[in-house]
């Protein structure tokens, strides 16, 4: 059974389903550090996505579960090499300054109130960072 958690970005709340069965190690790691207070910023290389970093979950060389290169809209993406988590509001791909196409873990998907949440993710490009909180639902 997939686990649901709560996410709050600025003044917009939403729920998120973690893909426990497809990415059990990553989901377990994230659940183990909840609640999380972070700041969401817009990416510079990967497209229409906002990200936050959790240094404690950075694991270069870690096994990549449920790997994707393109990020589905409304998804939560995890890049263990950076401890990076990302919410995608449009077209996006795992990239950085070196690689035009890398892979990342598709860890979850927004459910309730996804659209207002993604709209606020989009605005981080022009309006700057937003406070983010993830907690058990």
């Amino acid at each position: 059974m997939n686990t649901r958690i709560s996410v709050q970005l600025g003044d917009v709340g939403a729920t998120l389903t973690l893909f426990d069965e497809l990415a059990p190690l990553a989901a377990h790691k994230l659940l183990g550090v909840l609640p999380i207070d972070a700041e969401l910023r817009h990416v510079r290389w990967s497209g229409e996505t906002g990200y936050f970093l959790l240094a404690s979950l950075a694991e270069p060389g870690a096994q990549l579960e449920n790997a994707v290169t393109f990020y589905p809209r409304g998804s939560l993406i995890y890049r263990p090499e950076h401890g990076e988590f990302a919410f995608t509001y449009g077209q996006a791909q795992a990239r950085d300054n070196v690689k035009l196409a890398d892979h990342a873990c598709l860890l979850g998907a927004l459910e309730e109130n996804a659209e207002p949440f993604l709209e606020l993710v989009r605005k981080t490009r022009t309006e700057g960072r937003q406070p983010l909180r993830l907690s058990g639902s």
Partner: protein
Amino acid sequence: MRHLEITVGKATGEAEFISEVDSKVIDAICSVLPCEGTLIPAIWSGSLGALQLPPGLPLDELQASVCSLYPGTLAISPRTGELLLSYGAAETRTELGVEYVCRIATVTTGRGSLITECATMHDRGALGATIAIGN
């Protein structure tokens, strides 16, 4: 010799046209300046900001020959007509891959403060920007 005056947020600087740019292209660039607008951070290209220039540039005459832009480099995208200013690691890309642009100038004065100010876009979002012909 003509140069460009750049303002981004609270930072100001000057840039000199590179010698490879044809004088007719410089004339055309100068004809659409000054330009006041918003420097928007790139989402595919790294540490790069884009300012939409007014219409009137002969974009099909621009020599799009570079994609890696060192910090403090100014370029124009023939596809979008945007002025691009790099402030860190940057390679002009789109969702489809690498895209070549026309390098036009290098920041010569105020480089550090412009780069520092541009980098704040990561926290603050887009910044007001002006580019004009210097005296």
